[in-house]
Every structure is written in structure tokens, then in C-alpha cells.
């Protein structure tokens, strides 16, 4: 079977996917929002700085203290006493006129940061991106430029996003582990039910019982139990139908058989008598088939009344052999018995076990030719009761061993009068009593059955009574 959707995998996959998407979308939004806000704050700061500088600087003040100012500006980097900030290198200002740069901060590049156009600019100098604000001072007839390296802003935006995303990155794997744990725990009742169903025998149709179940599973289980009970009753009806039919057939069959025998008794015409004997033979076969059908339905029905007890298989074999001695005698067959004296005790239902033995022996007698030999043994070997049956018949080809156990299967060209149900009855009983059945070919080419039962050590009812 192709592997199909798994609720467990689906849940985990979807949870993972959606939590990634739900993390990514706010992160992108936060990044853009932060960048925008930072830009506004920094831009405002630059405009203000430019205006302040423009107010306090003039050509006169510069002429008076140019030397001092330049010295101060250049010493910023070297002066340890002067408290400065590492971001200062990324901030700069320039003042330049027609005669070139008049004054600038030490962090500024040596050429104008921005063109002589008022407003904001983005430029590149020495592989650094700068954002700058140009202001023209008509009073002094110079350009005042305040600039910032753009990576300052990027760093800040990144830091904000990182602070936001870090907890999520830690949280997602924890969520995943938690989810798969919870999903597994949620599926536990299902797993238990599956184990229960798996361990069932095919005809066991009682309700599935488990302790408290979640609502979702108990609904499924209820539906399943309803189906099981419908199946069980359908199965029971089917078996009951076969059983009823067989019973219903018996009365008219008995009538037909009696009338035929009455006719045979009345008839003094030889050819009529031989026809009537054919008719009687046919009716006998029909009776046998009816009885076998009944035995099949009985063996298949899992009726609770089927009491299991300890049965002496050896005694049962002796009894069956006696009952069928007449049949073997008619075909002048020799039945060699080798039955253990004691200990051949088996736990089984008596009717079923009787069906098994009688069908096995009956089958052997039917398919073994005239004057053939049948060996029938029952022995006890290391905790097992072993039943073997070997005949001098034509045997069965090994590839048909499984098929002869099916109902109504007959080997082609086999002209015996069997019902085609005997070995299928044996198979049913074998399944019920959990015995092992193997077929093989013996030295003479005939069929050899070997059935192994677990030996029971309990006393039989008869022993217990005595």
C-alpha cells in the first residue's frame, strides 16, 4: 500500500511552516518600520546640527580662531581625556566655499560630502555610504554639510530586528519538540486500539474495550464497535443459515431415502432395483453433504457454549476407528492402529475434536482404493500429542496441499463420493484448537497427515470423577 497522509507529519509540517511565516512577516514589517523611524530621527538631528552650526559659525569667528578650531577637531581622535564616542567617526560636518574646504571634522573625507544643492543626499566616499544634509549659508556664502555614515542606521535597525527575532528562533524548536510530543500523546489511544485489533482472531467480534478515551477517538471506536456488532450478527446469521438449511434438508431427505428403500423392497424387477439403488446412493451422498455442511457451520461458529475441556485424544481415536471400521471393511481396507495408552490429553472442544478425527479418517477411507492400507497413530512426544494418518491412496501433489483445505475443492479426476468439505472442517478445527497440521507424501506415494497438539496435563473429567 502506498503510504498516505500522516496526521502526525502533517501537523508538525504545518506548525513549522506557519510559525516560520508568522515570524518572518512581523520581522520584515519591524525592519521597515524601524528603518523609517530611525531615518526620521537622524535626519531631523542632522538638520538641527546644520542649523546650529550655521548660526554659531561665521567667517569672522573662523578667521579669529581657525587655528584653534582645526587643532581641536583633529585632536578628537587622539585626546584620551576628551570623552568621545566610537560613532563619532561615522558622523562628520564640512564647511566649504568657493575657495574649497574652510573647516571640517576629522572624520569627514577630504572632498565635499555632497553636491552644492540644498537638501539630503546619498553619496559614496572611500567605500563608505554617507547620508548628508547640505545647507547654503548666504550670510557667509558657503555650504554647510552635515553627514552620517549610513551603516550607523543599518546597524540600529538590524539590532532592533535581531532583538525581536532571537526569542522566536529559540522558541520554534522548543515548540516543535512540544508539538510532536503532544501529538504522539494524543495518538496514544489510537495506538492502543490498533494493538487490540491486531491481536484479535479473525472471528473475534466482541466490542473493543479500552479505558477512558478522548471524545474524538471514542466516537471512532463507537462507530467501529457498531460495525463489529453488525458484522458479528451477519456472520452469525450466515452460519445459522447454513445450519438451519442443513437441518431443514434432513427431513425431506429422510423421507426420500425411506421411499426409495420402500421401493427397493417392493421391486422384483432387477433393472428397476439397480436404478433404485443408484437413487439411494445419490441420496446417501446428499445426506453426507448435508451433514458435512452442518459440521462446517458448526466448526465456523464461534459459539460461547463451546466448552473447552480436557479430552483423551487416544480414546477418541479408538472410538472413531471403531465407528468407521464398517466403512473400511466395505472397501476391504486394513486400518492399522497405533494408539498411545495414556497421556494423550488435549484441551479442546469435544465435538470439534471429534469432527477433526472422524473427517480425517473418513477422508482417508474414501480416497484409499480397495484393499488399501491406512495407518493411524496417536502418540505423546515431549509435551506434544501427535496424530498421524498415512494411507496407501494416490496421495496429493504438494502444490495442492493448501487448496484441498478449501471448501468444495476436489482434485480433478477424483471420482470419489466425498463432499469436498472434510478437510476444510479439519482446517477449521485446527485453527480453533491452535494445533499444527502438515501434509506430506509417504514412501508409498500416499498422503501422510501429521497433527501436533499441545499436551495438556490436567485430568480429564472421567479421571477426576474416579
Amino acid at each position: 500500500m502506498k503510504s498516505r497522509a500522516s496526521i502526525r507529519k502533517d501537523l508538525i509540517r504545518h506548525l513549522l511552516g506557519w510559525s516560520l511565516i508568522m515570524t518572518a512577516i512581523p520581522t520584515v514589517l519591524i525592519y521597515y518600520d524601524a528603518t523609517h523611524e530611525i531615518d526620521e530621527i537622524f535626519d531631523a538631528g542632522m538638520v538641527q546640527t546644520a542649523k546650529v552650526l550655521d548660526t554659531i559659525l561665521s567667517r569672522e569667528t573662523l578667521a579669529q580662531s581657525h587655528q584653534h578650531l582645526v587643532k581641536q577637531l583633529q585632536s578628537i581622535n587622539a585626546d584620551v581625556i576628551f570623552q568621545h564616542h566610537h560613532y563619532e567617526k561615522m558622523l562628520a560636518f564640512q564647511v566649504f566655499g568657493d575657495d574649497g574646504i574652510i573647516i571640517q571634522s576629522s572624520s569627514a573625507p577630504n572632498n565635499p560630502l555632497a553636491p552644492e544643492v540644498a537638501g539630503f543626499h546619498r553619496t559614496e566616499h572611500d567605500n563608505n555610504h554617507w547620508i548628508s544634509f547640505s545647507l547654503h549659508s548666504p550670510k557667509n556664502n558657503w555650504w554647510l554639510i552635515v553627514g552620517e555614515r549610513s551603516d550607523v542606521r543599518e546597524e540600529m535597525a538590524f539590532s532592533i530586528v535581531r532583538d525581536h527575532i532571537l526569542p522566536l528562533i529559540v522558541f520554534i524548536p522548543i515548540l516543535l519538540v512540544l508539538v510532536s510530543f503532544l501529538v504522539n500523546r494524543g495518538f496514544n489511544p489510537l495506538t492502543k486500539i490498533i494493538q487490540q485489533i491486531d491481536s484479535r482472531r479473525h472471528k473475534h467480534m466482541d466490542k473493543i474495550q479500552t479505558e477512558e478515551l478522548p471524545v474524538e477517538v471514542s466516537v471512532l471506536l463507537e462507530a467501529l464497535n457498531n460495525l463489529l456488532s453488525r458484522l458479528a450478527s451477519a456472520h452469525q446469521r450466515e452460519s445459522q443459515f447454513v445450519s438451519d438449511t442443513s437441518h431443514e434438508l434432513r427431513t425431506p431427505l429422510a423421507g426420500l431415502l425411506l421411499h426409495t428403500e420402500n421401493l427397493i423392497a417392493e421391486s422384483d424387477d432387477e433393472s428397476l432395483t439397480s436404478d433404485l439403488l443408484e437413487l439411494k446412493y445419490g441420496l446417501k451422498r446428499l445426506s453426507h453433504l448435508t451433514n458435512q455442511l452442518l459440521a462446517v457451520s458448526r466448526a465456523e461458529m464461534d459459539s460461547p457454549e463451546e466448552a473447552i475441556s480436557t479430552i483423551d485424544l487416544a480414546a477418541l481415536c479408538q472410538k472413531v476407528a471403531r465407528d468407521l471400521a464398517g466403512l473400511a471393511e466395505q472397501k476391504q481396507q486394513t486400518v492399522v492402529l497405533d494408539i498411545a495408552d495414556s497421556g494423550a490429553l488435549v484441551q479442546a472442544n469435544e465435538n470439534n475434536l471429534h469432527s477433526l478425527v472422524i473427517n480425517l479418517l473418513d477422508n482417508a477411507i474414501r480416497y484409499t482404493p480397495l484393499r488399501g492400507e491406512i495407518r493411524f497413530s496417536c502418540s505423546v512426544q515431549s509435551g506434544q500429542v501427535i496424530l498421524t494418518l498415512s494411507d496407501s491412496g494416490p496421495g496429493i501433489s504438494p502444490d495442492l496441499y493448501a487448496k484441498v483445505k478449501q471448501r468444495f475443492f476436489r482434485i480433478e479426476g477424483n471420482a470419489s463420493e466425498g463432499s469436498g468439505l472434510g478437510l476444510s472442517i479439519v482446517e477449521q478445527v485446527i485453527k480453533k484448537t491452535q494445533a499444527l497440521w502438515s501434509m506430506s507424501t509417504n514412501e508409498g506415494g500416499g498422503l501422510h497427515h501429521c497433527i501436533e497438539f499441545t499436551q495438556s496435563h490436567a485430568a480429564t473429567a472421567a479421571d477426576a470423577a474416579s
Partner: protein
Amino acid sequence: MRILLIEDDKLLSKGIKTALTRQAYQVDTIFDGAQGLTATDTDHFSLIILDLTLPTIDGLDILKHMRQNRNQTPVLILTARDALEEKIAGLDLGADDYLVKPFDLAELNARVRALIRRQSGHAEPLIEHLGLAINPANREVQFDGEQVELSRREYALLMELLAHPGRVFSKAKLEDTLYGWDTEVESNSIEVHVHHLRKKLFPGLIKTVRGIGYKLETSL
């Protein structure tokens, strides 16, 4: 020997009646449980063959009723069900034997013979009486070693008297036994059969008890 057959299946009932009639039994048939129950109460039979599944009253209930009323007539149960429990239930209620359908004619005859024999107090299959030797299995009658041919009714009459030698049987009872309900009986038919039996066997065998009926002589 009069047998009551309570079986609702007409085909089977007719087959059994034909078969048993050939064995010189008088067979009366009833197809319904309630009528069967009445018949067991009012008439006397040597054997009742009882089917278990019957309309109106179940076979086992008829059996129960009979035994409760101290009716000791042997009962042979006919059943389509061969489950052990049902056989045991039938026997426990007082049935004397059972036959599972379908059965062989030979088996039916053998069981009927055995039940009637036991009821008459004979355990052995051959019946011997004052030089008579009767084998119910093949209905052969010998007198002093000589084979004697008897008609079906003559044989039936002899067997009925042989069941209780020395007991007086009324003419009416003998008519019932020989003819059941379904045949018109001529008024002197029993006398005719007795006359034939005396002639074929020996005159002193059957004694006429005036005004009452007949009895079988117990000693010569």
C-alpha cells in the same frame, strides 16, 4: 403391534408408514402436536415415534406430558438436530431412543423392533413360545422347525398376543391394534384371523374367552 407416528412432514411420515406397515405393524399417523398429545392420552400404542419440531405443541412437551401422566409407552425420537445437548434433553425427559434424520430403513426397523421387544419383556431377538420360533428381524415364523407363511395381519395379531401371553385381549383392542383409525373393520375380521392362525399353527394356541376376547395359551 400398533405404532403412533407423530411427524409433520407428510413425505417422511408416508415413507415411515409404508416401511413399518410392511413389517406388519399397524401405523397411525398424526401431523400435529396437539392432536398427537390427545392421541397419547386416549389410545394405547406399543410404540410412539415422535418428531421434535411439530406445529402447535413441541415433541419434547408431548413426551414430558406423557411421562408426567405415567404413560410408559416407549418413545423413539426422530430429530433433524444431532447436537449432543438435544439428544441428552430428549433422553432425560424419558425418551427410549432417538434417530437422527436422515436414517437408514434398516436402522429404523432395528430400533423399532428393539423397543417393542423390550416393552414386551423380551431381551433376546428371537421369540420362542410353545414350539413357535419367531424372528422379528425378518418376520420368519417357524413351528416345530417348519417355516409357516403368515399374512401381515395374522403376523401382527400373533405378535400382539405374544407380547403378553396369558393376558386376555378384548376384540376391540385387537381391532384397534390391527387396523388403527384409518381402516373400516369388518365385524368378524378378528375371528377370521384367529381361525387362520389356529389352522396354520395349532388349534390350542389361541383360546377364546367368551364375551371378552382372546388370549394366548401359556402351556400345552
